């Protein structure tokens, strides 16, 4: 399952400055490994942005990257977080997608897939073309 959370966060840096404009979430990747985010809006003048976090607890993910809503809520305690929002005009219906083109085994009837020894369900199979023009099967594991 995909979990999402929208936060209004203070920013640091600037578009033309030495440090790129970004949410002021120091060591985000270290502290919140497994959580990804998009920035929907910046207000450079007032120094804030709207960030939407997402994560998944899909069993095909490495164990350390399987996160839930509780893990997202931990980000609320960051000093730069100004407010938790319930919605944003640019929040897409689907924000995050996990998929795979590799697998150890797949059962298309049961919609089960095993990737690097980790077993889970997939939602559907799609045909994708790689950057070399090769068509391959892409199994969508989780989205939301």
């Amino acid at each position, binding site marked *: 399952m995909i979990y999402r959370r929208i936060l209004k966060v203070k920013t640091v840096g600037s578009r033309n400055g030495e440090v790129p*404009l970004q949410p002021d979430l120091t060591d985000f990747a270290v502290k919140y490994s497994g959580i990804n985010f*998009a920035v929907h809006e910046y207000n450079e003048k007032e120094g804030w942005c709207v960030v939407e976090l997402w994560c998944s607890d899909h069993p095909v993910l490495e164990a350390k990257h399987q996160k839930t809503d509780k893990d997202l809520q931990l980000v609320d305690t960051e000093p730069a977080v100004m407010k938790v929002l319930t919605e944003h005009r640019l929040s897409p219906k689907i924000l995050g997608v996990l998929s795979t083109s590799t697998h150890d085994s797949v059962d298309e009837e049961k919609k089960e897939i095993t990737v690097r020894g980790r077993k889970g369900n997939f939602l559907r199979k799609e045909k994708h073309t790689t*950057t070399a023009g090769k068509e391959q099967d892409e199994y969508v594991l989780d989205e939301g």
Partner: protein
Amino acid sequence: MSVNIDRKKWRATEPQLVFSQPYLGFAHAFPLDTAYHRAGECEMSYDGEWIKLDEKITGDYPALGRSAFAITYGWSGANLRCHAVLKAPPNDNNIYFFFYEPFKGDYANYQGLDTRDGAEHNARSRNGGVETKTVLSGQDWTVEHRFGLEHEVNQSAMRFYIDGSVGATHTTNISAEPYEVLAGEPNGQIRTMYMRYPAGIRVSRSF
């Protein structure tokens, strides 16, 4: 295939650092002035401002690259940060705008910004074929934007920049260096891609 670009001019007009967090080390500029392509119906030209990559047949997968070698930087403990100014008029559907791959076509380990899935604008990270994709809202890539990518050498994060700001950050499915830096692949379509030159690509290593 390459175009005749004055390298001295490139060096002289090198842009100000866009991602110039404090450097203790060094930064280099590498022009993406070579097109990778497998068929002959792809033309590249330069009008003094933009490199134009003109794909004339379907089913070809050219891209602008460095024509040299994938960049290794882990020895220095550095991140790989690059940017390029690109546009894709008159529509921006189904294009790999700016991306890293260990070599051209190693899609299993792709990290980049693209619109491969139709009109959707995406930040995408792949590690051994497993993918994390974040959909970016409110985007229009038919007009020029400065796209940036930053890969944490320890594979802890991939940051995606648009016009000098973070558009997305991934912490899952980050593949390992080395990377080739690539831009403007039209994903098998007949179309033209533009990359601003010389104020385009910059490869920087920071500690």
